[in-house]
Every structure is written in C-alpha cells, then in structure tokens.
C-alpha cells in the first residue's frame, strides 16, 4: 500500500470539483436528497486517492466511514454495514455520538441461530437469548459492533495512496469504539421491525425470529430480504440520528472498489433501500453523502456502451449538486440517485504541479521537474502511471543532467526496475500488472497484438476475432475517446504493451503486416501506411507520401503525414534520438535535395520524435522544422501550411492534454 503525505494536496489535484461537491452535500439539511457519487475510471485513475483526500479533508469534522469492497475481502453486506456503523459511531467534538440500535438489533437477531422448536417458543426466548448474545459479544469485544471489526476489519484497511493523516483518522475511528453502559439492551428497538413492510409478522419479537429464520433456514430470496431490512434499519438509524440536535447533518460514506461482486451487491442494496424509503414509502431521504469508486462499468447500468443508461458521464471539474439536479433522471427510477463522474487524466500542468508537490518530500526529484512534459507524453496523465514513473526516476541512477546521456537512459525506461514493497518489477510489468489485473499473460499477449491498431475494436476484430478483450477494456475504462472518436486503448498501457510486443519482432511484423493488409483492403491508406511504417517499411511509406505531396492540399498532406508517423516502432532500446536516426540511415545516397529525400528524412525524424521514449527531450523539433522548411521550398504553391508546421515545431509548446502526437 502506498502512503503519501497528504491526499488533499496530491490525490485530488485535478479533482477539486469532488471536494466541493462533498462539502456541498455535507452542508445540506439532513433530509435533503444527495447523490451516490460514483468515481469512475481505470485502475490508477486516482479514486482511492480521492477517498483518502476526502477522508483527510472532512474526517476530522464529520462522521465518515471507509470500506474497501474489493473482491479479495469478500465482504458480505451485513459485515459491511457493521463496519460502517462502527466507524460512524465515532465521537466527534462538535457532535453527540451517533447510535445504530435498529441495525445492531437486526444484526444481533440474525447473527446466531436461535434454539427453538416453534415460532411461539422462539418468540418467548428471543429477548433473553439476544440479551445473552449481546452480553457475550460485549464481554469479548467491548461492544457488539466491534466484533464486526474483528471479523471483517481487513476491508477497512486504507485506500491506496492514503496519507498518514487519513490513516490516523481511520485508525482513530476504529479504535475509539465505545463501551456500552451495562444493562442497555438493543432489544428496545424491536418495535421498528414489527412495523417493517418486508416482514410478515407485526409482532416485534416474532419479526426478529423471522429475521433469524431467513438467515439460518431461508433461501437466497430470504437472505436478500434480510439484507434489505438491515439496510433499511441502517438508514432509519441515520435518519433518527440526524433528526436530533447536536447531530451531524450528514454522514460521509466512502466505498472503495465497489465494482466487485460484493461491492455491486452492497451498492444495489443501498440504492434500493434509499429508493424504497424515499420514493416508494415517501419518507424523508437518509442523510448519507456517498462517494463510491469503481474501475468497471457496472452491469446494472446496461451495456458498457452506455446507450441504455439515462446518465451521461460527467467530468469531476464542475461536479456540483446543481449539475446533479439538472442531469438526474426522474425520481421514479432508482437511476436518479447516481452521479457518475469520470476521473479524467491529469493535464500537463497538473502533472507538473504534482511533481513539484512530491518534490517537497523527495528533494532528489528536483532535477526531473523539467521532465514534466516527457512524463505527461509518456503516461497521458494517468495518476498512478505518473506516480510510478516518478518512483522509478527517484530510485534510479538516471543522469540528472539534461542531455544525450539522460535521453539514452530514458530510452529504456519501461525496463527500469520499480520497487513495490519487497517485489522488484520492471516499470512495464508493474504498470501492466496494476492496470490489467485479472487478465492472464496469454491474453495480455493477445491484447498487445490487438493494441498495435490505434482502433482497438479493429485490432481485436482482425487479430483475435471472438475475443471479448475490447469489451473488457471498455468496461475497465481503459479506452480513450468515448463516443465518435477512435476507441483507442489508453496510450500508457498501449505503449507498454507495444514495448513488450517489440520483444517479439516476428509477431510485431506479422501483426502490423496483417493490419496493413486489412486497412489496405478496406481502402484506409493512412492506417495502412501507419502499420507499414511500424513494420519498418520506410521506403513504401516514403513513396506513398511523396506521391500524395503534389496531389493533395498541404494541410491534408500534413494531417496524413502526422497520422502515419505517429506509428509505434520497435527500434533498438538503446541510444538517444540522434543515434536512432543514424541507425535508420538514408534510403538512397545522394547529395541532391529531392522531395523524396526530404520527405523520407522527415518521416523517420518524426517517427522517432513521436515516441516519447525515443526522443524524451523533443530534441528533433528543429530537424522536423527544417524538413518542413525544405519541403516548402520544393512546392510552388500552398506553402503556408508547411511554413506554419515548421514554425510549430521550432517553437514547440506541448499541448495540455494528450493528443495523437507524441
């Protein structure tokens, strides 16, 4: 688990809208409707850091609970509720302590199997038995809810990237359980169960016996009903708490990794309980401010294309209650409670600020502040990737001086080692393991081949028909450009996958050959040339572009040139940009400055340039600018676009967000 200094400072860089949204929610009156904010993005997009930052920001003043619903914890809903209630009971200076008597009684009643031969007998004995259970639990753990921490405490853990301050808060919340005054029994809340619509019996004690039977003798439907009643009890307790003076207006619930099977179930039950209480039963809304994170598309939202879900993903920058109210579907649908926020990648400025913030802790990063554009080009601003790259730089003997030595070192960056706890992996392996968790090596190899195509959907169709990889990547939010733009794999995993594919030269060539043929057969010449260049057929590409040069407007030619020269390469993994260029050499010797010679030079230069690992410092800008200048002299008209392009490279300004360039 990574621990950072301050989640607020680093984790939420570029996610300020989330903080202000949560702040807004916490300030609302207790009965106001609040969204279930979903932080959506691939692994490493900063959701856990967001949880940590929210915890650190609001934890000291507001009751909060954090539960990690990741699959490995296998957290059943009842345990999840127990953990949440236990944390929300934390005593804060400005509020009275919150109580969860209904939930506790429900958990208690369904905990142990009651010894009874008939309902009537169960009814007679249940109070005594429940009191006895409670006394035993309190004798052992201090209070009944503390027992849940003993059983399921692993799911509390701490979010990845949690700051020391957030960790301290979390530990404080768990440790400071309260010892109940002896003699105060939860059985006083039994009447609430007698009146619950999901329970047949109107008698409080029979209702509790029914709960017990559902858990120990019931089928799956009964168990689901039990969970629904428990969630309803949880919300009723919260409403009751918030109704009193000196109680908080809202409770912050942080549900990490809620895309897991258990997480989805937990969220389903929570949303359903809220919807049943608020919309169906017409009660006031519960005072929960829920922030959940998921790095998967949730099946309940329909197909991952999102066509059948009434929500369009919103950006986190301008998230607010007003934005939620304006876009939420009608209250009749339980979709009305979601507020999906897509965690975007960091832009260049945010990466730069992040490096500077980390500098405060790690002064050894100082020489690398200039590398912000490189890091951003390489990772496309994926927060975990930025972090991993910085970690590699910090722990390696990378030349501090900007220059050829540093360029040569950075050329092999994916193969540099990254220490993760006691494990030592290459950066590429560590990053791919993180991003593609759950996908085995053969499929990763297949994915690497498919990723050779910019459009992953075509890559999978051509190279691995019938494979669900495309859908899988889409569900993992690893595709760039939802909607009309090319559904490309995120540049960071794609670059690393292609780095691996480059180790298999034959496969590399075959894949690109196949793709080139495919695009050729469908008349998409630019894409065909893209793959030919990746295949290393520089002359063919040169011939194509030379042929296009006089025939099409300069602007279009430049566009096609840029698309083609953005092709990946499998150039040697040593040497700086000039070494690489030298290795590629001229196609045909000759002193004459011909169009073909200039275009060829331009193609290889930009090909190398467009790979951030090949030209980390963008040292080839001037060469490219010269190439366009020369090209402008070889054309009689329509030269302004060429001049402009030359100027663009000469005075290069790196774009804030990722583009196909570089």
């Amino acid at each position, binding site marked *: 688990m990574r621990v950072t200094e301050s989640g607020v400072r680093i984790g939420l860089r570029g996610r300020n809208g989330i903080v202000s949204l949560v702040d807004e929610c916490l300030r609302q009156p*207790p009965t106001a409707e609040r969204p279930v904010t979903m932080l959506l993005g691939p692994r490493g997009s900063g959701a856990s850091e967001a949880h940590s930052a929210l915890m650190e920001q609001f934890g000291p003043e507001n009751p909060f609970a954090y539960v990690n619903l990741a699959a490995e914890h296998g957290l059943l809903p009842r345990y999840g509720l127990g953990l949440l209630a236990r944390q929300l009971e934390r005593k804060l*200076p*400005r509020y*009275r302590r919150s109580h969860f008597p209904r939930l506790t009684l429900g958990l208690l009643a369904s905990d142990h199997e009651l010894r009874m031969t008939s309902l009537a007998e169960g009814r007679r004995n249940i109070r005594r038995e429940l009191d006895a259970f409670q006394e035993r639990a309190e004798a052992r753990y201090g209070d009944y809810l503390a027992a849940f921490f003993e059983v399921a405490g692993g799911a509390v853990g701490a979010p990845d990237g949690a700051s020391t301050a957030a960790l301290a808060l979390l530990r404080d919340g768990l440790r400071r359980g309260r010892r109940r005054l002896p003699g105060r029994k939860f059985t006083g809340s039994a009447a609430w169960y007698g009146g619950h619509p999901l329970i047949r019996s109107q008698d409080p004690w029979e209702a509790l016996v029914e709960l017990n039977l559902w858990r120990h003798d019931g089928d799956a439907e009964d168990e689901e009903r039990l969970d629904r009643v428990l969630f309803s009890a949880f919300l009723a307790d919260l409403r009751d708490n918030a*109704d009193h*003076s*000196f*109680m908080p*207006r809202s409770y912050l619930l942080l549900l990490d990794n809620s895309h897991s099977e258990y997480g989805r179930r937990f969220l389903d039950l929570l949303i359903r309980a809220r919807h049943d209480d608020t919309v169906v039963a017409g009660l006031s809304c519960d005072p929960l401010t829920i922030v959940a994170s998921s790095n998967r598309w949730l099946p309940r939202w329909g197909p991952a294309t999102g066509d059948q879900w009434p929500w369009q993903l919103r950006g986190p920058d301008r998230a607010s209650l007003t934005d939620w109210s304006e876009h939420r579907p009608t209250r009749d649908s339980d979709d009305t409670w979601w507020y999906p926020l897509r965690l975007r990648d960091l832009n260049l400025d945010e990466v730069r600020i992040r490096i500077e913030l980390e500098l405060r802790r790690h002064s050894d990063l100082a020489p690398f502040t200039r590398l912000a554009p490189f890091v951003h080009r390489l990772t496309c601003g994926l927060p975990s990737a930025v972090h991993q790259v910085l970690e590699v730089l910090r722990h390696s003997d990378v030349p501090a001086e900007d220059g050829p030595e540093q360029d040569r070192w950075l050329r092999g960056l994916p193969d540099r080692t990254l220490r993760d706890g006691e494990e030592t992996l290459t950066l590429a392996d560590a990053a791919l393991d993180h991003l593609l968790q759950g996908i085995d090596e053969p499929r990763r190899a297949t994915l690497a081949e498919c990723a050779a195509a910019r459009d992953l959907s075509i890559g999978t169709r051509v190279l691995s028909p019938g494979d669900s990889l495309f859908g899988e990547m889409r569900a993992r939010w690893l595709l760039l450009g939802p909607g009309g733009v090319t559904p490309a794999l995120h540049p960071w995993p794609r670059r690393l996958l292609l780095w691996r594919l480059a180790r298999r030269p034959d496969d590399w060539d075959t894949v690109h050959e196949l793709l080139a043929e495919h695009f050729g057969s469908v008349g998409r010449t630019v894409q065909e040339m893209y793959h030919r260049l990746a295949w290393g057929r520089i002359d063919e590409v040169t011939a194509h572009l030379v042929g296009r040069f006089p025939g099409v407007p300069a602007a279009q030619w430049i566009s096609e040139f840029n698309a083609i020269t953005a092709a990946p390469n499998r150039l040697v993994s040593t040497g700086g940009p000039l070494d690489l260029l030298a290795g590629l050499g001229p196609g045909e010797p000759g002193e004459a400055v011909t169009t073909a010679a200039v275009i060829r030079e331009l193609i290889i230069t930009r090909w190398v340039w467009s790979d951030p690992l090949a030209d980390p410092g963008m040292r080839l800008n001037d060469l490219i600018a010269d190439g366009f200048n020369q090209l402008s002299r070889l054309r009689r008209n329509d030269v302004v676009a060429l001049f402009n392009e030359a100027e663009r490279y000469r005075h290069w300004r790196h774009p804030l967000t990722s583009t196909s360039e570089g």
Partner: protein
Amino acid sequence: MRRLEWPLHIVRRVVIGVVVLAVLAVAIPLGIRWIGDVRARCDDGVVKRGENKECVGVTDGSYHFAGHLAAVVKKIKEENDKVSKEAEEGEPYVSVAYLTSFTLTNDDSNSEDSVRHELEGAYLAQYRHNRGDLASSPKIRLLIANTGSSSAHWNYTVDELIDRMDSADKLVAVTGLGPSTDPNLEALRKLSKSGLATVASTMTATNIQGISGFVRVSPTNVDEAYAATAYLKGSTKLRTAVVVQDAAKTNLYAATLGTAFTEAFPDKKTGHRLVAERMTFDSSVPGGAWKNELRYFPAQLCDTRPQVIYFAGRGRHLTNFLDSLANRSCTDHTFTVLAGDDTSNLDREQIAHAVENDVTVLFTGLAHRDMWRADPRRVSERSARYFQQGGQMDEWFPTDDRYDGQDIMAHDAVLTAAEGIRMAAIGGPDSVTGITVRRMFHQMNGPQQVAGASGFISFQNNGNPRNKAVPILRLNAQGRAELVEVSSAQGKPPEGQ
C-alpha cells in the same frame, strides 16, 4: 422540534463556562464577604464597623467593648455562664439585652462613666432576678449590645439581636436603648416590630411613645419640666425665670423642656412669671457658632435679672453656658440655673467646673440614691438599699462613684423586664416570649407595680410611667449631685403598695 446545530464542544464549553461563572459569581462575593467577616470580626456577634473600626454587636460578656467596662462585663459573663450551666441541668432561661452606645466619642451626649454605671445597674437587676432577693425562673442571661458611637451601627446590632430571638439565647427583651436620638428611635421601632419587649432606661423624649411593646422607666421631658416647676412653685425665692433653649431642630429634648416649662411655670396666684422671652442658641450650626451666641446671653440676663434660668439643652452645652455666665457683669446677682436630666451625663470634672462660678445649678435628674432616705415612701426600700453607701453595689464596684443615678435607671429598666418575664412565666417557661413579656407591662399596676430604686413604676398605655418620681438635684463643688427634693409631674410621686 428545531434541530440545534451549534458545535457541541463549543456549547459544552459555553455551558461549563456559564456554570463556572455562575458559581464564581456566587462564590466570590460569598468568599469576599467571608474574608471580610473574618477580618472584621472582634468576637462572636461582634464586628468592626465604620471608619474607626469600632467593635459593635452583641456579646454575652465574652467581649468587653471598652477597657473601663471590663470589670462589670466580667461579672455579667460569669453570671451568664452560670445560667448556661444550670440550663444543662434543666433550668430554663431567657435573655435580656442591654443596648446603648458603649464605644463613645465626643459626638456622644453620654459619658463613659454613665454607660458603665448603666451596665453595673443592669447587672444588679440580673443578679437579683437570678439568685438575689427576687430570685425566680426562668433565669436571665444579660446580653450587652453596642450600637457604636452615635448609634451609627444600630442596624447591624439590632439585626444581631433579632437573630437571637430564635437562637439558643432566647432573647425576649431589650433594655437601655440609649438617649433620645433618631438612630435609637429607629432601632426601637425595628425591635418593636420584631416582637421584642423594650424598656428604655434614660430615654426621656416625650414624642417617643405609643410604640408597641415599649415602656420606659424614666419620666418624660415634659414630666421633668413639670416636676421642675412644681419644685419652684414650692419656693418663694425663685419666682422669676427666663428660658435659655437650644433651638437646634434635631434637639427635641430641648424643645420639649423649653415649651413645657414655658407653659407650666407662669402662675399668677403664686407670682411665678417669665421675665423675658425665650433666649435661644443653635448647637447644630457648623463651626461651633453656638458658643459665640452663648457669650451674649449674660449681658441680657443681667438686664432682666431673673432668679431662675431654665436651661433647656444638653449637659455639654450647659457647661459652656455656665462658663459664659461666670463672666457676667452683674456678679452681685445670684442666678439659680435649673436644667434637665441630661446634666447627669456630665462627668465629675465637668460638674466641678460648672459650679465654680458662683451659680447654683439645679437639675431634674432621673434618679438619685438619696431619694429613699429623703422620702422613703416614694422609693422601694429593697431596691434602694443596694445603691446606698456600703451597699451591694459599692461592694461589687468599690472604686466606682456612681454619682449620676444612671445605675439606678438601668437597674429599674432591667428589673421591669425581669418582672415582665416572671409574670409571663406563670404560663410555663415556654410561654415566655417577647410578645408575652411586653403584654405584662400593662399589668404592672397596683400591687404589681415595679418596685424600682428610682420610684414605684407603673405604665400608661403609651408606655410612659405614671407620675414618676423626679429628683431635684444640685451640683456641688465636689462634682457630685446632691438631692434637694423628690418631685414629680404632679408634685408628689406615687407611694409603694
């Protein structure tokens, strides 16, 4: 119900703060008061008051307010302790207080001698009631109550006395009550309102009357003036008179005497007449201007040459007047100066000085030990014997010359209270309260009249004594008052029955 959203820890702090402040707000004044009380304490029930830090309050004799009182206070303490000890064996008791200004300054009309003599007389009455010739039950504890100079702190002392009604002291009566001043009158009213019986010893102002539960053993000023005229009318040599009067508004004593004398003296049958209008001075004018006024009187008096000058004023003004008169031009004419009872407050030096000037000084006193020998039927023999030369009082206080009769008046006052207690106790010791004692004052008639050393005493409904004996006294060169005659408002005082 509206939710309160103030931060609980702040609310708690504020509430705790308010509670602490409230506690401090109560505790600090109490503490300061306690510290003040401790620092201001002279003894149980006696505290320091005023700029001079004089000790005022009530004591059972544990504390003596002035050094000259030590001997008599010690005796009172011993007697009180005896009563307390007997109480442990079941002997019932009640308390009677003797209230006056015991810490005196030049502002007071009483002298140290006079208040000491009062206390000695009061002790005699206590002794007689407890274990002397009048021994009866319940016993009396005598409390000494000091209101301070000019009775400036009467309120504190009176409150202390009222508190002792329901305490172990079982106070039922307050005697003494000091001279006729406004503070003393206020004190008297408050005591009366609280239900205590009150008996004044030397309070003579005529207007102090009709107060519930209040009686006095002294004649009123009017009675004194009438007794003076009765004496003069018995003389053929003293027929012309002039009244010299203090015109100070607060001096009711002087106004009462002057007016009563002016009314009663002229008598066409006997030829007694006033030969000039009243001559007045104002002792209340700041800066002592009254002394200058007095200097002009001798010339006028030499013109009119009255045989009698009736001086209606305080004793201390009388000495100045006599000084002025000594410097008169008509030294061939002998004046007889007749004054009121306040003359008895003069000490021996003052009296001796007053008679150096070839002037006969007579005054209507309140009591004199020679009254019994001069007119045995008008004074109780049993009581009077204690005051005779070589009597019990001389045995107890051999070095103290009780020339002013104040001991007799105080004795008679306490004796009146003791008589009331004895009469009230017929219903059992528990029936002795301030209310029952003061009711008994109205029953003290005929055989029940008080056999006082200053005369036989019974009371009118307004609290004044009936036709009380008034001694006509003359100051001699030794600074003593000599009895001339026993008079009364009606000429002859009542006899014993």
